């Protein structure tokens, strides 16, 4: 009996510590994560090829039905075989506009978010790692940007430069870079007080190594989680500009302005145009929620904390 018990206690000296943790398998999504990944891939395909697949051009007015009879009032028509999601307030095919709009909405906000991230992270991490004067100057300048309401800042810039898609991208990118800066700096401040950064400082490593190898990889995950939210903010920001007539200019369609311009249809109920507002809103929601769930899923596997909260 005694000998039997003793067998399972390792006798070697070198590895007496218990439980060799198995190597983790990286990036495995749950079924809901896979489903959301599907949604995102679907929208990316629509964004890339939607203009070829759509039944009509985004600026095309539906004037006659399939048999050639002219409509009295083509605006806010309920769905038929001809127009699967009905028509909008001036009689354009909602489905086609959503398909065309995917490119504008996803394209502009995605590029703008990436711009915001590149600028914000670079400045934020530099401020945190370099500290002292660099930090003071950068932080105070960013606070100036943040102290303006973003829509005011947008109005002034567009008043000065006019509205075009490149301007919209740079504008929203820079405005949201300020909030990314704050998050990146705050996250980095937590990292740079850790011992492993102290170790690299003691080794004599330069600023570049500390930023790119020690700090960035450790803040990547929380920043990625933030990416989805930031993307939504930028979609909404561009939509509000469009609502004021300063964003994406007609006849180019984008989801945000579709929601706004068809708002009056909501009052008519489903038979008379509510779909023209709800459909693009659902498009925005499906994309942003799907992105968020995927990010949560990845970080749940990575850190393990989220999965516990979800159960």
């Amino acid at each position: 009996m005694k000998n039997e018990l003793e067998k399972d206690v390792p006798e070697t000296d070198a590895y007496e510590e218990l439980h060799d943790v198995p190597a983790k398998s990286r990036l495995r999504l749950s079924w809901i994560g896979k489903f959301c990944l599907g949604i995102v891939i679907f929208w990316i395909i629509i964004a890339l090829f939607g203009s070829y697949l759509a039944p009509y051009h985004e600026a095309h007015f539906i004037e006659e039905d399939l048999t050639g009879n002219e409509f009295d009032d083509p605006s806010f028509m309920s769905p038929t075989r001809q127009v699967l999601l009905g028509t909008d307030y001036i009689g354009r095919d909602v489905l086609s506009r959503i398909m065309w709009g995917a490119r504008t909405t996803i394209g502009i906000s995605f590029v703008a978010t990436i711009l915001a991230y590149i600028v914000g992270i670079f400045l934020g991490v530099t401020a945190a790692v370099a500290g002292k004067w660099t930090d003071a100057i950068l932080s105070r300048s960013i606070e100036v940007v943040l102290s303006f309401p973003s829509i005011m800042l947008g109005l002034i810039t567009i008043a000065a430069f006019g509205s075009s898609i490149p301007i919209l991208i740079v504008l929203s990118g820079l405005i949201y870079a300020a909030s990314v800066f704050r998050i990146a700096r705050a996250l980095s401040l937590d990292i740079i007080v850790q011992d492993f950064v102290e170790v690299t400082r003691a080794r004599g490593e330069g600023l570049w190594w500390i930023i790119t190898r020690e700090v960035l990889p450790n803040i990547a995950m929380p920043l990625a989680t933030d990416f989805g939210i930031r993307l939504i903010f930028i979609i909404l920001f561009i939509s509000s500009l469009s609502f004021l007539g300063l964003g994406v200019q007609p006849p180019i369609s984008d989801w945000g302005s579709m929601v706004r311009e068809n708002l009056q249809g909501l009052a008519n109920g489903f038979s008379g145009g509510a779909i023209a507002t709800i459909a693009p809103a659902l498009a925005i929601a499906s994309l942003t929620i799907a992105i968020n769930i995927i990010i949560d899923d990845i970080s749940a596997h990575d850190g393990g904390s989220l999965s516990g909260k979800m159960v």
Partner: protein
Amino acid sequence: MKAKPIFQCRDLKIEARPWAQEPIEIVKGISFNVFPGQVVALIGESGSGKTTISLAALGYTKPGLHFSSGEAILLEKDMINLDYEEKRLMRGEHVAYLAQSAAATFNPSLTIGEQVIESALLHGALSKETAEKRAIELYLALELPQPYMIGKLYPHQVSGGQLQRLMAAMALVEKPSLLVLDEPTTALDVTTQIEVLKAIKKVIREEKSAAIYVTHDLSVVAQIADHVVVLYDGVIKEQGTVEEIINNPKHSYTNKLMAAVRPTPKANLIEQSVLESEHSNSALVVKNISAGYGGTNKRTPTKLVLHDVSFSLNHGEVVGIIGESGCGKSTLARVISGLLPASSGQILLNEKELHPSVKNRSLNELQLVQFIFQMADTALNPRQTIGEIIGRPLTFYHGVKGKKRDEEVREIMRLVELPDAFMNRRPTEISGGQKQRVNLARGLAAKPTLLLCDEVTSALDTIVGANVISLLKKLGEETGISFVFISHDLSTVSSFADKIVVLYAGRLVEQGTVQEILSPPFHPYTKLLINSVPELRVGWLEETLKKQSTEVGISGTVEMTDVGCPFYNRCHIKIEGLCNTTSAPLTSSLSGHEIACHHLDMALLE
């Protein structure tokens, strides 16, 4: 024992269910009883499931764990199957939990008194007045200073040992029948440990409550427990009364635990390898170093932490730096590495002066001194693989790249006894002891002549810590590296070092070879440290507490004074009017080593 047990564990099984993986059994069928008034110790190394089992007494598992079968019966109720509300009523009133780190358990923005009586008020068990009265009773029983006032203080205003005792008061306020203590002294200095052990032991006796005491330290168990349960990998290896286990262990694993208990430092038992000072070109000389924090100018810190510290170290030697937490040990290491530039004094490496700041040192100087941080958990970047971590100093200092680097990394990993397969793992995928080896390996990869080891074994449990020490010894012999070995644990230091430097409140109070430090004459502080190392026998605690030096020593706390001897308020042989006005210079004693004390050698002999 004829009485009915208060708590019964019956074939308890607990498993972890990782995301999308097979369940792993953590606790594999544990049975034991706790009788009224009995202290049962659960002992085992980290990962043995001892904390998980102790939490079952509260009907609680950590997130991700589930009770799979068995019972945990407290006062005839199975804690596992109670619903949330019933568990809530049991907790606090019948069973209380004392966590390892009091500092992390107290809310810094509430007063201590509010927190101590909080659970009693929440349960409606006591009225506010009776609860406060009860708290004061407990403060008195736990021998806390100013028992009528301490409840009005905030957690940061009392010392770590006091906070640990206050947490005991918090647990005891509702007179629970069972107390669960999870390593309550592990994070403390030896002197503080005595103070807390004494209070906990006394209060358990007086309150007649039963207790489950979780620890990995057999010598602590010997002082406090009645019954011992030895655990390994979620299985009971042996259980019996404390006398049986300590004096007559049956299982080989218990023997292994016994062997890992740090030996009591005794001068005559230690083989002294006194290095001949013929080739006395010193590896490191620290001359009159003062350093501190705060202030805008580095040369004039607002708070001085180190006062005029000097010592030297020959090639291949190990100098141990000991003292309680807050005495400036880690600051000294940071000063030598240049992370914290000294405000005055000199550091000579291989007889060449080093610039005080790391920013102004040459690549070669940086390479020769490597700093091994205390916590391997935080000192390794979780986003880099072990190969990258160990390989970076090779590339950075020696320009080794590609395949050659991988080869050298493997060689270093073999040196610290890590398997090659770990190269592609990340720090989160290996155990605590293995992380500490990686931490060491990174330092070695720079090929230094001096390694600064800051408490490298403190965060590890005894068996793993002993392994790391023997590895360090082996490395010292094989590579001829000199070590500055910082620890609060005198027994670890004396088993490894050639010389010892004793720091107290930022001042050097005694230095010499291990032999000299551990034999009289002693500085009163060194004596207190030596007497505080727990011994592996029943009754040691009571014996030590009777000694006058211990009694005075553990009642005071460290005070940073600018005038007089810093140890004045804790010294059992202080000279009124001299010790509190003039600080004693370092003078050579009879045996030839240096002591900073006003007493003549003869008084320090005892």
